[in-house]
């Protein structure tokens, strides 16, 4: 449910969470995208950071340059004409994934948890088109939704200390891709040879909030020889 007015939560004296709705939903997330895009266009030095989330936009500001009421006035100015701000056309990225075995150590467990075969889990996971709700956690990490109900699975009871770069995991209705090696508690179904984050690239993250993702199963032998197709994004 989208709010008719932004709701504010203070995170200290230099960050403001602007909430645009309740829960997780595409409509709310689209509103967040527009507000992010609109405020980003203002290019004011008083706003130091903008981070779109599922249902909120975090605005980090310099309290010595702008007061909280003045900042809210700016935000409401953009919110009132939100439909004027159309974010750029989202990209649709096809992400190759080698499922199972050493690439997806939790595939078997997830299949057994749902009384499905591993092939069925792969089919469900790769049949949906996902929306990038936000980028967070680690550099370039896309929070994708929604996973088909048939394979929605809770996080692992004990998170792994190290999840390899490229791992594709699920947690309840979310799925995500680990762009860099990091700790992680999601159920790992497979791994992509694609590089999602490169600090030398502009932008450094292959995916942006609002983009679309589809997973394409590949054979394990294809993993090492896979090359990015220059025409795809």
């Amino acid at each position, binding site marked *: 449910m989208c709010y008719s007015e932004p709701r504010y*939560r*203070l*995170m*200290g*004296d*230099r*960050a403001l*969470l602007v909430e645009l709705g309740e*829960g*997780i939903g595409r409509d709310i997330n689209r509103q967040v995208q527009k507000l*992010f895009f609109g405020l980003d266009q203002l290019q004011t030095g008083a706003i*130091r*950071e*903008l*981070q*779109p*989330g*599922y*249902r*909120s936009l*975090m605005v*980090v500001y310099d*309290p*010595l340059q702008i007061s*909280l009421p003045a900042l809210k006035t700016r935000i409401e100015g953009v919110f009132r004409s939100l439909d004027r701000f159309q974010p750029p056309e989202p990209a649709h990225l096809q992400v190759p994934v080698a499922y199972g075995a050493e690439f997806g150590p939790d595939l078997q467990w997830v299949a057994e948890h749902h009384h499905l075969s591993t092939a069925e889990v792969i089919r469900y996971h790769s049949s949906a088109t996902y929306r990038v709700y*936000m*980028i*967070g*956690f*680690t*550099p*370039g*990490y896309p*929070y994708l939704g929604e996973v088909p109900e048939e394979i929605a699975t809770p996080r692992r009871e004990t998170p792994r200390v190290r999840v390899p770069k490229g791992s594709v995991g699920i947690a309840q209705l979310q799925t995500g891709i680990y*762009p*860099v090696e*990091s700790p992680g508690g999601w159920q790992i179904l497979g791994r992509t040879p694609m590089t999602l*984050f490169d*600090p*030398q690239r502009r*932008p*450094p*993250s292959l995916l*942006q*909030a609002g983009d679309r993702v589809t997973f394409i199963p590949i054979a394990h032998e294809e993993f090492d020889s896979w090359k990015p197709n220059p025409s795809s994004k």
Partner: protein
Amino acid sequence: MISPGLLTAVQDLGRFGQARYGVAPSGVLDAFAARVGNLLVDNLESEACLEVTLSGLELGVLADLVIAVTGADLGLHINDRPARIWRSVRLVPGDLISFRAVEFGCRAYLTVGGGIEVPVVLNSRSTNLGSGFGGFTGRALQAGDIVHGRDPELHLAAAGRHFDLNAVPAYANDWRLRVLLGPQEGQFRQTGLQTLQQAVYSVSPRSDRTGIRLEGPVIRTRADQPESIVSEGVVAGAIQVPGDGKPIIILNETVSGGYRKIATVITADVPLLAQMVPGDRVVFQAVTLWEAREALWRVEENIARLRNRLGSDTCRGSRTKPVE
């Protein structure tokens, strides 16, 4: 670099404008000490420096330069003689800088006149240690590394500057951190809010650059609230409370999270978080937005006073070589 000590990394004031790509700010944890240190060696306040954690760092000097050490007192020695911090000093090739004992605080800042020569990655020279990019080839310094300065010879005249020691924050082992309640203070039990403001917490040894973990009375979420919240952005100083009820103060290496934040440390007190060591005691005091703003102005006044005293003739920021 003879010995890196516990952890030494290149940091500036942080990597901003990249949270949308999931990139945390990194950067110095004690921005106050780093800004003062840069002014003492005639740099822009935002110049990169070495963030030194606890003791053990030993450096051999290979060129004429001016340095200043600010922040924690980690037993600075120059050529085996104890040296004072919060002042700039001229060094020559062959000099030896070492940090030998933790007197007060946790992190010292070694600024070099001209700054440190590492590439700018995503608008910053800071090291992102978690993901391995930025700073000195994306990692902490190791024995044998050679760190280059940026035109250190242009800053030699800055030697002998000092900062008013009365304006240095007191680094003790008991901390009072001022906080603004929120953003999710209403989702905790009323007793939890009281606990936060009355209990004495101690800093856990499991604390690091990603967060300060606290041991002490647990803070409970209201019974009608789900285990976690929908992920959202976070800033350094936010105090998150996971399911076990033990607060964690977020630092510069986290960009988003799904835990509730009961309160947030005010900007003026965030640099103090850099100086807390395991076993230190912490109490929280809720203040108003107006008080937070007053406190921030006082911090800025301290830095402005130094800037003014150094004078317009010497405080040019990072100079460039004359055009030939």
